[in-house]
């Protein structure tokens, strides 16, 4: 199974309480960092670790931290992005629910490294039940002197609060999140200035994903160099993968980066294979916004090499034949799933979630939904396929935030890899709209 950096104790009964958490080595990193290390030394360890942002973008965390502006007399903030809303992703929710103190510990150690005296965990509004769990853990940490004034006698002060969202995917984008945290609509901000210079309340701010922050204690306890030994190349450490769709064992798995995709799908340690003995048709490996790949291209790269669960291997081939690790949301499609219907579903999602600020996204996502809907329901025209590609292209790169790209990529990749399935829907609307009908023309080719 490999090393467990995040989940070693996650199934210990009572781990959500401070007492049990501490019995299993909890809060050691706070002790070590605050008493024996300077903030910059913590930042250096994180840089050395090669840890990359686990929310989806994969940006090196240590580098992000080192960009934080430090003007005199201005407060700095650390904000944890717990707005997990990318379809297919449920690792952060699972992790916080089971082991809330691990996030609280990461927040303390990371806030110390950044010189923040007030930090926030912004959690999606639907997860109020997780907010209650986190608030309970935070109250325990205050009572134990791990939060508040003069933590463990170190002279360092930190207040930590949890703030709920209100149901908006866009607030996972860091500047929209900050707007929301300020009590406003979640409209992303223009960059620059970046949050590292002007973030929350126009003060220097770092926004990091739950899993990223939860990885910091292990790095502090064991050194960044040890962390960098786990994984392959620039994909260091472990990753929580949310596995969903048509598999035997859906759930969250902590993997050492570098596990072969084939092993991840078929091993009983992980997904346990495609359910009901069916064939694999396609996989979306990193959350709904990354390109979908047919079975042959998810198992092997275009060059015929085994595809691995790493940032580099999953994106091998670029958007022609590759995808992305993204947030680690691994969505598996069996042979009975309709790619057109799924693409329409995602398009509807992005149309629903577009904040409406940029015309290409606001209008384009609506057009993609409409055109995909008519193809799915038997009213498509032959030119619709090229129309979809054209609309996707006009959104991509033309918006303030990446939601536009996230909306365009699934559509563009579905047409790229499953064009004949779209054509079949348009040419044979009667067959395609019959109950339970699925295009199977590709299966032989996909599995060859």
């Amino acid at each position, binding site marked *: 199974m490999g090393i467990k950096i995040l989940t070693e104790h996650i199934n210990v009964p009572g781990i959500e309480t401070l007492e049990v958490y501490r019995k299993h080595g909890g809060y050691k990193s706070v002790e070590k960092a605050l008493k024996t290390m300077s903030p910059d030394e913590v930042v250096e360890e994180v840089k050395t670790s090669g840890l990359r942002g686990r929310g989806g973008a994969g940006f090196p965390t240590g580098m992000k931290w080192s960009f934080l502006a430090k003007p005199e007399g201005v*407060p700095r903030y650390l904000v944890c992005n717990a707005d*997990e*809303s*990318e*379809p*297919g*992703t*449920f690792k*952060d*929710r699972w992790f916080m629910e089971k082991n809330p103190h691990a996030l609280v510990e990461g927040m303390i150690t990371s806030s110390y490294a950044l010189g923040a005296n*007030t930090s*926030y965990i912004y959690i*999606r*509004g*639907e*997860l*109020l*039940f997780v907010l*209650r769990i986190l608030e309970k853990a935070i109250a325990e940490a205050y009572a134990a002197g791990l939060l508040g004034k003069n933590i463990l006698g170190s002279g360092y002060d930190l*207040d930590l*609060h949890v*703030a*709920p*969202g*209100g*149901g*908006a*995917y866009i607030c996972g984008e860091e500047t929209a999140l900050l707007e*929301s*945290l*300020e*009590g*406003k*609509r*979640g409209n992303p901000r223009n960059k620059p200035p970046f949050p590292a210079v002007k973030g929350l*309340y126009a003060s220097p701010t770092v926004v990091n994903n739950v899993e990223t922050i939860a990885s910091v204690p292990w790095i502090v306890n064991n050194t960044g160099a040890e962390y960098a030994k786990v994984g392959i190349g620039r994909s260091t450490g472990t990753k929580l993968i*949310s*596995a*969903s*769709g*048509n598999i035997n064992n*859906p*759930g*969250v798995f902590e993997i050492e980066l570098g596990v072969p995709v084939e092993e991840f799908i078929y091993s009983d340690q992980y997904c346990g294979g495609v359910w009901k003995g069916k064939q694999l048709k396609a996989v979306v490996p990193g959350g*709904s916004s990354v390109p979908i790949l047919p079975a042959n291209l998810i198992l092997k790269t275009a060059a015929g090499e085994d595809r691995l669960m790493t940032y580099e291997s999953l994106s091998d081939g670029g958007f022609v034949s590759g995808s992305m690790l993204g947030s680690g*949301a691994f*969505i*598996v*499609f069996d042979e009975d*799933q309709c790619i057109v*219907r*799924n693409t329409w*579903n*995602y398009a509807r*999602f992005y149309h*629903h*979630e577009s*904040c409406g600020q940029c015309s290409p996204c606001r209008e384009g996502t609506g057009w993609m939904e409409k055109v995909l809907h008519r193809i799915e329901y038997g009213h498509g025209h032959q030119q619709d396929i090229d129309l979809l590609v054209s609309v996707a292209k006009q959104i991509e790169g033309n918006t303030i935030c990446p939601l536009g790209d996230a909306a365009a990529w699934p559509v563009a990749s579905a047409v790229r890899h499953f064009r004949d399935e779209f054509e079949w829907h348009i040419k044979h609307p009667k067959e395609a709209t019959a109950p339970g009908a699925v295009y199977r023309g590709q299966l032989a080719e996909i599995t060859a």
Partner: protein
Amino acid sequence: MAETINEVKFSDAAMAEIQRYISHYPEGRQKSALLPILHIAQAEFGGWVSPEVMDKVAEILNIKPIEVYEVATFYTMFNLKPVGKHVLEVCRTGPCCLRGADQMIDMIKQKLNIEEGETTADGMFTLKPVECLASCGSGPMLQVRELYYENIDSEEKLDQFLEMMRNKEHETPTWAK
């Protein structure tokens, strides 16, 4: 005007919770507590926020009513019209659909004889399909108030769920206990 606003009255427990949230933010940044307060308001006043409730929230935060309206209309969790006792927030996004969410939504419509966004004649249920709730490994699923109900993957389980909800009172929010 002041009299109209005064008709909306939060309970003491709710006001204490509101003050606790306001205290989390720096001086002068009390508007940051708007979303948590809207959640509290919705739980206090029957699962939705009326213009009067929003005006009261604006008064508490010392901001303009429009600042509350523009936020309440942006975020999908806030219901702006009266709803049934139980709002069934069913996930309709891709990963849940791979495990049968479309069929589950159709069954709910049939069994309750309502369409999306509608409330049953007896005021018991409102059907509100929503986007991904971060429960993709345990779909089909739905949320009612603060709780998740997962793996509702057969008609039998759906029937059991609806029957249970018919006899269920809302959980008291933690802050009101």
